[in-house]
């Protein structure tokens, strides 16, 4: 394999990429609401039935019928782990009907646990949640006279992330607040699939501006969405 073959070997279609997911897998999915969400990969999941019963770790479940909300309607999601599901009324309904398991984690704890998972950190002590219902069952410990709880790192089988540009090696840069959970998720899964708006030649991204180095990325997929009036819409094919 030469340098050239490395640089092209990560490129796949959304369908080829999603075919790597197995039934029952746990997925980290980037995004904050719909911002920085891999919409094309989600569409490709919705169109197949091989990989069902997914556990999705993501800050939200998109909105009703949009982003991860689409997969809730298609019945792909068994369990959701995240910080805020109230904004998707489908999620609330599905949970009430016993069709969806939910695990609630404070947003910063979720972000840090994913970073820890990718950084070889098995657990860490923070103040967030001390004395609340979300600390139940968690070990508490005093450091310098203050109460902390132990949070374990999070890893997953697969991460689906969204970046702005990738070079063909897989180095990534993000766009504004669409960065959010994506860089940590890129570090914390066995298989990392990055959906990007644009693929550029190696050398085009400033080494100081790269947020996710290429060794974190296994598969690169070009997005089937484009921005129109600042909003992501499906490309006309």
């Amino acid at each position: 394999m030469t340098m050239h073959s490395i640089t092209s070997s990560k490129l796949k279609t959304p369908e080829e990429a999603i075919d790597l997911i197995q039934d029952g897998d746990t997925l980290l999915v980037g995004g904050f609401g719909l911002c920085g969400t891999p919409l094309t990969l989600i569409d490709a999941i919705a169109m197949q039935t091989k990989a069902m019963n997914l556990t999705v770790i993501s800050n939200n479940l998109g909105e009703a019928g949009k982003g991860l909300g689409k997969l809730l309607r298609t019945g792909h999601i068994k369990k959701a782990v995240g910080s805020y599901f109230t904004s998707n009324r489908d999620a609330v309904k599905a949970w009430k009907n016993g069709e969806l398991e939910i695990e609630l984690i404070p947003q910063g704890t979720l972000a840090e646990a994913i970073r820890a998972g990718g950084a070889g950190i098995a657990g860490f002590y923070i103040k967030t949640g001390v004395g609340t219902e979300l600390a139940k069952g968690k070990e508490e410990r005093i450091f310098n006279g203050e109460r902390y709880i132990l949070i374990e790192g999070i890893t997953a089988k697969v991460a689906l992330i969204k970046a702005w540009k990738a070079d063909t090696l897989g180095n990534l840069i993000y766009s504004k607040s669409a960065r959010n959970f994506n860089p940590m998720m890129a570090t914390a899964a066995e298989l990392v699939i990055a959906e990007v708006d644009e693929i550029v030649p190696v050398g085009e991204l400033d080494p100081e501006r790269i947020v996710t180095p290429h060794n974190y990325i296994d598969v690169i997929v070009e997005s089937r969405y484009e921005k129109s009036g600042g909003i992501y819409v499906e490309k006309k094919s």
Partner: protein
Amino acid sequence: MLKKNHDYRIRIAKRIAKELTAGMVVNLGVGIPTLIPDFLDPNQGVFLQSENGILGMGPTPADEEIDMDCISASKHPVTLDLGASIFSSSDSFAMIRGGHIDVAVLGALQVSEKGEIANWAVPGKDILGVGGAMDLVPGAKKIIIAITHLTKDHSPKLVKELTYPSSGIRSAEMIVTEKAVFSIKDGVMVLEEIAEDTSLEEIMATTEARFQIAENLKYMHV
């Protein structure tokens, strides 16, 4: 009544805006706190942090400049002020937990007389969201609570002890309602300011929490 409630929320937001001074890094929670930017002078020198990864969040863009890659924690399109920076969610909450936010202005469902905050869950109802509030509670250097004095069914929100699930063991330093401003010092609630359209009697009647009255009790100006 709805109009009146809106006026109250504006009054609360305006009063809190006066607390925010040059150089402060401020995180604004959902609800009333999101109204505050309208009452900040661009020259006031306040830097807004948004937990989804922005320091230096600017006002809502014109329609033709909307970019949904650039949103607030309430998921509305925003702009970037001069000197803004972008970072990941883990770096953002490292900033929050590590004590690098000067002020968090948070909404609440209840506040106890010791300043404990309940702002994420209602007993007996579904608990499906917590967001970033629980990280801000122990992390911010100062917490200001923005809250209407009474619930929709006219129950006090300032209570002796929380009956709603707590957001953490850390207390707020300041509470601003449409009727009054309270401080919390050494676990004691102190009435600092009173709105001109209410009375001490009314505040006493609508506040379950026990509070002291500041020696130099003032009118609340917005």
